[in-house]
Every structure is written in C-alpha cells, then in structure tokens.
C-alpha cells in the first residue's frame, strides 16, 4: 500500500478508540435497567473498532521490503506563547498488531461478560467502565505522542481502579482497588520523570515527526548526551520509563497489586489484568525501544532483563501453592509478563511483543474459562471445592485445556512458539537468565497441570456438608443463598462459551506466524543457528517434565475431600506455607513502607492542623479584627452615630420649634410684633 493511503489511514486512527468512548459516554446516561441496550451498544462499538483496527492492520501488511512502513499524524493540542503541546496518531506494525489484539480480544470478552454479569445489579455500570477502558487502551496503542500515551496510561489505571472495586461494598475489593491504584502510581512517578527528562532533552514529546525531530528519531543523538548514574541521556530516560512499566506490568517489587486485583469480576481480570493493561507496560517499552537500545552496552537493558527473569521465577513459585483459581492465573500472568520483559531486556523487540500477543489470547481464554467455571459452580472459586467438572462442563474443559497447553508451551500451540523465541533470545544474552527462565517454564507447566487436575478431574467436591461457608474472602454480593452452593455444576450459556471457542482457535493457530511477525516488525531476521536446538529441546522437555510431575502428584490420585491437605504441602512443609503466603512480601511492605507512610501522614496532618491551619486562622482572625474595627469606627460611630445624631437633632429642633405652636394667640402676637420690630430695625439701620 502506498504511503499516501497509509497516511490517510493514520489520520483516521482516532476513530478506533472513539467508538468505545462514545459507547461509554452514552452508557453513563442510560438507566440501570437497560441491560440489552447497554451491552449491545458496547459490543457493537467494540466490533466497529475491531473492524477499523483490522483495516489498518491489513494496510500495514503490504510491505515488500524490510523497511518499516510508518505513518503518523501530529496536531497541536494547545499553544501558549511559543511552546505548544502536540498530540499524535501513529499507524505502524507494532501499533496495528496491538490494536487488533485489543479490539478483538476485548470484543469476545464483552460477549462473555454479558453472561458473567447477567445476575448482577450493576450491569450497565460495568459495561460503561469496560468501554471506557477499551477506549483508553486503544488510545494508548495508537498514540504517537508520549503525553497522549501517558494520559491514556492514567486512564487505563483509573478504569482498572474502578473495575477492580466494582463491588466496592466488599471490604476486600475496596482495599484491592486502592492498592492497585497506589502501587501503579508509584511506578508512574518514574514514568513521568522520564517524560519530563525526554521533553527537556529533546524539546518534543512526539515520537515521530515529519522532519525527523521526533523523540525516538533523536534517540541516537540522545545517546551521546550525558545522563545520570553514568548513563547517557537516552538510557536514563529509558530507565525512568521502565519504572512505569514496572508498576503497570506488575514486575517485582511492584507486583503486589495484581493478585489482589482478582477481587474484580472475571471479565475484568481477563481484559485488564491478562491481556491488555498489564501488557501496556511491555508495549510501552517496546514502543520506546530505540531509546533503550540507543546506547550500546548500557546496564539498563540488563536491569530490565534481570527484573523480568526474577519476576518470572518468583511469581511461578507462588502460583504453585495457591488455591484460588484466579490467583493461580494472576501469578501466571505476572510470570509471563516477566518473560516478556526479560525478552525485551535481552534485546529482542519481536520476541517480547509476539509473546505479548499470544499470551493475550490464551490468558484471556484461561480467565474466561475460569469465569465459566465460577459461574457454572455457582460462584465457587476455591479449587479444593471443585473437581470432576469435565463431565459437567465439557466445552469449558476442552477450551481450558487448549489454553493450558498453550501456556505450558506445548507444541504446536501458540505458546510454544512465542515462549521458545523468548528463551532463545535470553539464551543468546545470558545463560544464567536462560536457565532460570527454563525453570520458570517448568514451574508453569507444573502448576497449570495441578490446576487442571484439581478443577476438572476426579469427582465433584462441591456439595460436601462439612465445608461450611468457606467463602471468607470470595463473597459475591449476589449470593444465591446457601442452598445453591452445594448444587450441581452446569455448563454455561452460549454467550459465555462461544468466546472461549474463538479464542481457542487463535491459541492454537497464532503461533505459526512467529517468523512473519519478526519480519513484519522490521527486525532483522537473522538468528544465530547455535543454541536453537538446545533451547527448543529443553523447553519442550521441561514442559513435559512439569506436566508429568503434575500428573504424578495430582492426577494419579485426585483429591477426595475439599478439606484434604494438598499433597505438595505434605512434601514441602513450611516452604509450601511460605509460597502460599506469597513470600510474605505484602506483610513486609505493610510493616515497613506502609507504616512509615502512615507515620508521615500523622506528622503531616499535625503540621497541617497546627501550622497551616494556624496561619489560616491567624489571617482570618486578623481580617475579622480589622473588619470589626471598621465596623465599629466607620459604621457604628460615624455612619450610624452620625445618622442617629442628625435625626436626633432634627427631632429636638422640631420639638423646640413645636413650642412655637402653643395654641396661644398672645404668643403668636408677640412673635408678630417681634418681627415688626426687626423690620423696623432693618429700616432704621439701612
């Protein structure tokens, strides 16, 4: 496609986030009862965005050479004096792929949500927020301007906050929404510092501009400017930006909000915390990749890689010991994000982004599947109380199985190809990291197998009488009543399993495009021949090993009762408890940082009350005093007093003059003759 047509499409990129935004705006005004209308509006809007995104994607496919086709459209947002703030829209392979993924996956998640939220009172509010989120995420993806990206970044954070705390009347949800927002905000401080520094050094926030003065185009120049901590300016900015990605993509140490975010409804978890928002951090690093690679041999890339590697292993260990179906998937997301970040840190844009795309599909599939399981078992979320669901929910089972195999990296599913690319790039960069990543892959296979057997195999443990109401932290507001909890699970309605089927297709087939994706992004396709066989073989091997171990422990003898002890905990003992309690990181944060912040808060409150309020009160009192003085002096004394005395004098004058009206004729006569005498006087003296 020629460049002019691409340019034309780039100008229309703003339509992609527009449809969900308009849908959200209309839905915010709809009354609560209009469920069909609200859901329909939302889905139609997402469908429209999807079609537009696919159109843009197809337009970018027509490149014959390795030159990256990129079209953008910048416009001035507002101007003050000589400086002006711009916004921009971009259409390039990275953007197009992400847009299609977000729109497509979002569309199917919305379809599923109509079933999941069917019994909730706040149906319309849910879809309003979801649309807003979709609009923000799409806006983030099509943005050519770091300011617009940041705005959309914050907006997705806001929507995440609103949706995690969708059932805000639950204390756990309220705490989780705050935690999510505050933790990501900490990362956003770094992000913002990065933006400031970039603007300072380059004078623009546009990523690509017509005269090649865009921020990314100046990356090379920035590499020669000095930054902080012995880095060049480009790497310093990259580091600061990566801190934002740390928060948003839930890398260690800011990962703590993601598992708690599972308090939100499952479609939220699927859309935001698996496929899109958490991927925004990775996407942003990918978008700003020229900054990261501008200075050769800087330690920021190594830092990124090690953070990703550590997070991958760390989260995978925790996932092994979790009992909530969504928590396992949450930690799995954390771990896979670590893989992506690690790949980016190892220097490969294509591997990281491709894994992002495939992960979006199969993780959304897994989350939607878990949503179906939750609905089908009447809001049961503890895996110990499930079991044997294969015969009750066959469609869900097969789709879930496909997703699980994709995640474990079993060929020929999508996850195998993408994870393989990641491991290969890591192997080229650092053997130690590769080793740890492979261990993480092993753990991934293990815990997913554990989950599969616990949930779908064996016999249904849900109806047992001695489990009581063990939903201490999973109470949903629309409880069906105690009678329902022991009921038989059932398959879900078609609008819940259809998205699963569609996503499964992608989970199977998407992997074959890994090579094309690399070329599509314009990355050089040359790969080192050595190590490829080793890496591929080892990844398959550890996958198989993990599945085998899982089967040995959980599959051969499935759990009989819900209260049974996990077989693994018997072997690992204290370690299992530590893993179950997430390595006590939350407790550590509570004791150190949160306590410290609370103490600071107390001091600041005291300061505010005494000093600031004191000054304010002093000012107010002084004003009051001055006004009282004016009131007394001016008003009381002069104005009131003056007026009163003039009235009084008039009254007294009148009273005195009234004495003339004595009614006595003789007095009148006297006055008369006095007047005559005065006239005579005047006559005499003039």
């Amino acid at each position, binding site marked *: 496609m020629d460049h002019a047509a691409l340019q034309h499409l780039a100008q229309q990129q703003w339509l992609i986030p527009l449809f969900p935004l308009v849908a959200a705006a209309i839905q915010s005004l709809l009354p609560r009862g209009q469920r069909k209308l609200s859901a329909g509006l939302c889905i139609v809007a997402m469908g429209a965005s999807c079609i537009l995104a696919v159109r843009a994607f197809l337009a970018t496919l027509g490149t014959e050479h390795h030159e990256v086709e990129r079209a953008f459209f910048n416009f001035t947002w507002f101007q003050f004096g000589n400086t002006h703030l711009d916004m921009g829209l971009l259409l390039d392979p990275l953007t197009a792929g992400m847009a299609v993924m977000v729109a497509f996956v979002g569309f199917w998640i919305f379809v599923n949500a109509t079933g999941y939220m069917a019994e909730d009172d706040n149906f319309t509010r849910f879809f309003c927020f979801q649309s807003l989120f979709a609009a923000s995420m799409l806006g983030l993806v099509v943005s050519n301007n770091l300011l617009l990206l940041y705005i959309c970044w914050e907006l997705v954070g806001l929507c995440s906050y609103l949706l995690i705390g969708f059932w805000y009347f639950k204390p756990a949800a309220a705490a989780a929404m705050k935690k999510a927002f505050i933790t990501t905000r900490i990362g956003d401080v770094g992000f913002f510092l990065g933006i400031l520094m970039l603007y300072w050094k380059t004078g623009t926030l546009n990523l690509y501009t017509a005269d090649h003065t865009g921020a990314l185009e100046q990356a090379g120049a920035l590499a020669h400017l000095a930054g902080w901590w012995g880095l060049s300016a480009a790497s310093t900015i990259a580091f600061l930006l990566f801190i934002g990605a740390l928060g948003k993509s839930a890398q260690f140490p800011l990962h703590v909000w993601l598992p708690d975010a599972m308090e939100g409804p499952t479609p939220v978890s699927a859309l935001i915390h698996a496929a899109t928002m958490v991927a925004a951090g990775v996407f942003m690093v990918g978008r700003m990749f020229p900054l990261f690679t501008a200075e050769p041999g800087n330690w920021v890339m190594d830092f990124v890689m090690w953070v990703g590697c550590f997070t991958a292993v760390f989260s995978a260990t925790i996932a092994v010991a979790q009992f909530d179906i969504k928590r396992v998937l949450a930690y799995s997301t954390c771990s896979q994000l670590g893989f992506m970040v690690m790949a980016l840190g190892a220097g490969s844009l294509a591997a990281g982004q491709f894994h992002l795309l495939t992960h979006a599909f199969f993780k959304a599939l897994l989350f939607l599947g878990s949503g179906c399981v939750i609905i089908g078992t009447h809001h049961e979320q503890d895996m110990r109380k499930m079991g044997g669901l294969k015969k009750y929910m066959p469609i869900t089972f097969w789709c879930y199985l496909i997703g699980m195999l994709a995640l474990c990296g079993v060929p020929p599913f999508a996850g195998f190809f993408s994870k393989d690319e990641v491991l290969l790039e890591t192997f080229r960069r650092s053997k130690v990291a590769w080793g740890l990543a492979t261990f993480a892959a092993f753990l991934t296979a293990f815990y997913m197998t554990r989950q599969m057997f616990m949930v779908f195999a064996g016999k249904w443990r849900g109806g047992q009488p001695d489990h009581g109401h063990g939903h201490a932290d999973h109470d949903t507001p629309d409880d069906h009543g105690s009678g329902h909890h022991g009921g038989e699970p059932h398959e879900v309605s078609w609008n819940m399993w259809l998205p699963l089927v569609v996503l499964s297709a992608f989970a199977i087939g998407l992997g074959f495009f890994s090579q094309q994706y690399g070329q599509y992004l314009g990355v050089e396709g040359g790969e080192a021949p050595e190590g490829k066989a080793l890496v591929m073989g080892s990844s398959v091997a550890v996958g198989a090993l993990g599945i085998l171990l899982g089967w040995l422990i959980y599959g051969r003898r499935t759990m009989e009762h819900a209260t049974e002890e996990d077989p693994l905990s018997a072997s690992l003992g204290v370690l299992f408890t530590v893993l179950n309690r997430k390595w006590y990181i939350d407790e550590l944060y509570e004791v150190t940082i949160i306590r410290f912040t609370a103490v600071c808060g107390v001091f600041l409150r005291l300061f505010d009350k005494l000093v600031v309020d004191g000054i304010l009160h002093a000012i107010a009192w002084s004003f009051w005093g001055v006004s009282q003085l004016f009131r007394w002096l001016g008003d009381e004394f002069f104005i009131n007093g003056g007026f009163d005395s003039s009235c009084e004098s008039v009254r007294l004058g009148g009273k005195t003059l*009234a004495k003339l009206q004595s009614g*006595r004729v*003789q007095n009148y006569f006297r006055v008369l003759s006095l007047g005559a005498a005065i006239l005579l006087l005047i006559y005499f003296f003039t």
Partner: protein
Amino acid sequence: MNIPLDHYLMLSAFLFAIGLCGALSRKNAIIVLIGIEIMFNAGILNLIAFWHYKYFTSVTAQMFAIFAISIAAAESAIGLALVIAVYRHYKSVDVDEMASLKG
C-alpha cells in the same frame, strides 16, 4: 399753635407702644382687647395729625378716619362676643388657658 408734627407722631407712637405692651403682657383677654383699642386709636390719631398738618384741604383723611373708627368698633364687638363665647367653654378669660390649638 406751634406744635410740630413730630410731637403728635411721637405721641401716637408712644400710645401705640403702650397699647402693644398691654396686648402682649396681660393675661386677661379683655385687657388684650383694650390694648388693641388703644393701638387703633393711636393709629387714627396719627392719621388725623397728618391731615391737620398737610392735607387739611382734602376730605379723604377724614373719610379714612371715619371708616377706621367704624371698623374698629365692629371689630371690638366681634372680639368681645368671642370672649364671651370662649368664656362659656373654658369658664375663664385667661389667654394662657386657651391652648387647644397647641401643636
């Protein structure tokens, strides 16, 4: 006779002052009327004096005097009738008591 006019004028002025004095100072309403009569007569005396000294050929001054006297008489009649009527109401002829037009 060699009395200049000013003697008569001064006499008339003096009598006028006496009459005024009486009208302004006494409490009894009838004395007030007496004072007014004195003033009247002083005025008419003045008039006749001028006639005698300067306008003795004309009859106008005498006419004036005749009319003045008759008017004075009518006025005193009315005044005394009023005093009688007032006396019936107030039971006294004290001018200080007749203050119902006060204010």
